[in-house]
């Protein structure tokens, strides 16, 4: 089940850029592509934990600022030949406002792992 949170206006996020939403289970990077589609990934590169929100957004992909891994915004999957995946979250847009869906159960599990 998802809890939906309103996180701001579409225009709060720069085109081909990203903003961070702080959640109890860690930072979530919210990206806006050139076509105004919005995506959300956990703000940690599966490679070495780089903050994806700081990367360069191109097409529906983001390049991690630390070692140039490229991840698909929709799925969080690393582009081959790199292998790995960042957790992705559902996003909704209504009347210029952006909503982020956080999954309670899974997120809690993630949070526990992180503190452990």
């Amino acid at each position: 089940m998802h809890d939906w949170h309103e996180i701001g206006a579409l225009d709060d996020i720069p085109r081909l850029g990203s903003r961070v939403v702080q959640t109890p289970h860690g930072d979530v990077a919210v990206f806006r592509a050139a076509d105004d589609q919005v995506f959300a990934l956990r703000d940690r590169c599966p490679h070495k934990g780089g903050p994806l929100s700081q990367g360069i957004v191109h097409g529906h992909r983001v390049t991690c600022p630390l070692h140039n891994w490229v991840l698909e915004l929709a799925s969080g999957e690393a582009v081959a030949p790199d292998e790995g995946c960042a957790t992705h979250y559902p996003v909704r847009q209504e009347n210029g406002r952006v909503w982020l869906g956080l999954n309670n159960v899974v997120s809690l599990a993630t949070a526990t792992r992180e503190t452990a």
Partner: protein
Amino acid sequence: MREKLVLVGNGMAGMRTLEELLTIAPDKYDITVFGAEPYGNYNRILLSPVLAGEKTVDQIMINDLDWYAERDITLHAGKEVVTLNRARRQVITADGTTVPYDRLLLATGSQPFMIPIPGNDLSGVITFRDIQDVHAMLDAARAGKKHAVVIGGGLLGLEAANGLMKQGMEVTVVHLLDVLMERQLDIEAAAMLRASLEERGLRFLMGAQTVAILGDERVKGVRFKDGLEIPADLVVMAVGIRPNTDLAKQSKIHCERGIVVNDTMQTYDPRIYAVGECVQHRGQTYGLVAPLWEQARVCANHLARYGISRYRGSVTSTKLKVTGIDLFSAGNFSGGPDCDEIVLRDQARGVYKKLVVKDNRVQGAVMYGDTIDGNWYFQLLRENTDVSGFRDSILFGQAHLGDAGHGGNNVLAMADEAEICGCNGVCKGAIVKAITTQKLFTLEEVRAHTKASASCGSCTGLVEQLLTAMLGDYSKTPKEKPLCPCTEYSHDHVRKTIREQHLTRLRAVFDFLEWKTPDGCHSCRPALNFYLIATWPSEAKDDSQSRFINERVHANIQKDGTYSVVPRMWGGLTNPKELRAIADVADKFQIPTVKVTGGQRIDLLGVKKEDLPKVWADLNAAGMVSGHAYGKSLRTVKTCVGSDWCRFGTQDSTGLGVKLEKMTWGSWTPHKFKMAVSGCPRNCAEATIKDFGVVCVDSGYELHVGGNGGIKLRGTELLCKVATEEEAMEYAGAFMQLYREEGRYLERTAPWLERVGLAYVKRHIVEDGEGRKALHQRFLASQQYAQVDPWAERASGRVDAHEFQPLRQVG
């Protein structure tokens, strides 16, 4: 419905074209492939190692039958296409199969030439071209046949002879001329090669013309013009290849020596393309693999309907694939009018190197015994580099440039566990394994799979050597490398277009040059953004989303996601007020690490991103501005104390350093740019490893350029000597501007200088006074827009505030 593409010829050129096509336009065509041989696609140039018993047939397969199935490609292996019906657009095979096409790709390769002499059809007379020939040779050797005669002392003939000898046969090589491999070697190198092959047991008959092959059904011997006859159980003809144009000719497609194609690899029938050894392009035919790769790339681009790539012909290099013999040849090695020869000969070591040079540019190379630098010379040749700066030591190789971070230069002699890429910790064995198991061919593929050479790039030469050693000369890329995979155009071409077409926006570049991706990638966007603002400083708008994070938030990202902050200290000078402000900031924001940098400043490490504007505000209040320690920009001007204090100082080096830094701070450059001013030749500021260094002497200022203390330690070259500080400033501005206008993005001044040559820079900066002044003026003009402290802008909260605050906190 998808269009139909038919490929005739299942060889390396055709398949490479398909692979390139599938990468860029995977769903465009229904593809059918016809191959005369009953196998998948294999690496023909590795047949020699198979014959020599160093590899198996399985090891040289590139695409097995499953590969075709997985990609929905229909493969007709072992079916020969006999005619084309161009009016109906059909190919027709020997057994009557008819397949329609929308586009047809001919890659019919070449056929070995059989000398038209009596007996050339006897059993036991073969050529050296495909797996069947290799099997025939191996069978002969295993059946205990003794005498083999190889006709032709060229590359292929010698590789065949070596293989047969390794299989236990007694081999005689017959050559029409007195010089082996005369198309690749000069007399000297050919003689050394012959001596070394004779030592291994090969026999040679030089200047011998074969007139008949003797025998009834099976070959028994060979007769020469002078009447000599020698026994033979096996005769291998390796006297050359001919483009296989039968199918094209029969279908009335224009052919000369090969199937004639234009720069897009299109034949005279616009629906039909051709690549590989069957092709004649600008009067040339090619029998080596590197040109085929370049053709495949261009052809795929046009089949995918991108239509923005041209093949302009290739310069080729050759290596002999005989284990233990190192031989390299490229370009025009025999010289001619106005050419100089630079020669190194060391009989005892068995080393011979010759470079042919014209106007200080490499035209050709022949090397025997030590070929480590072959790729380097070949690169100098292709890029037409001015070598005057290192001509006196060029034959000693690239090693004298001193690579840091990995073990050495001879990759073949390295152990498997030797580390090649010091950045990513990749050892030789891992790269070799990736090349073999993942079937990698290019440097880019090796980088993607292993990360070797993917960071600082200093081991690129070693990785290329490995590729070459394992696969032949695959890694040769076209002279003009595309800027990134989003385009076919090179850095230089893109820049020229931005200037000539007056493009001032990224979108305009993408549109005008028909970028393949909607908004570029992390490689091209920062490059284009720099080219735009460097070319049109008053008009182009800096696009912060096209900047790497460090330049977007004006601090250096660290491995844990925090940032480092380095305030500017003009010429390395500071004072109690600044130091107090730095100490206060470190206390107030609990900055964990404070460190003195190599550029004479202080680095505050571990600053949280949201604290950055507040940290900057406090530093601004004490009069400090951004040090641009994070940018492809002017970094620092390092100085010594000079004549103010030092008993040896000849000039006010600190003062000049401050002036230089005040003039140049804030400017964006293709890569980072460092300066230094030393007050005397003792050079305490280490000015001779900077991009621009000044060494003061009693009579004035020596200006040094193109130094680098990083990956490749490189001392500067002396640009000139000037008498006054004003001149030193003008030369510095002009040099930076020339680099800003002509250096490729992410190319430091050292490789830039090596590429264009010191003479070129001197011509523009030293010899052309008007030009120098104009460059300097352009530099100052662009500084009007660049010298705004980015920290103050952001500390005010009016610029890019979104970068430093989270969007929201939830839960």
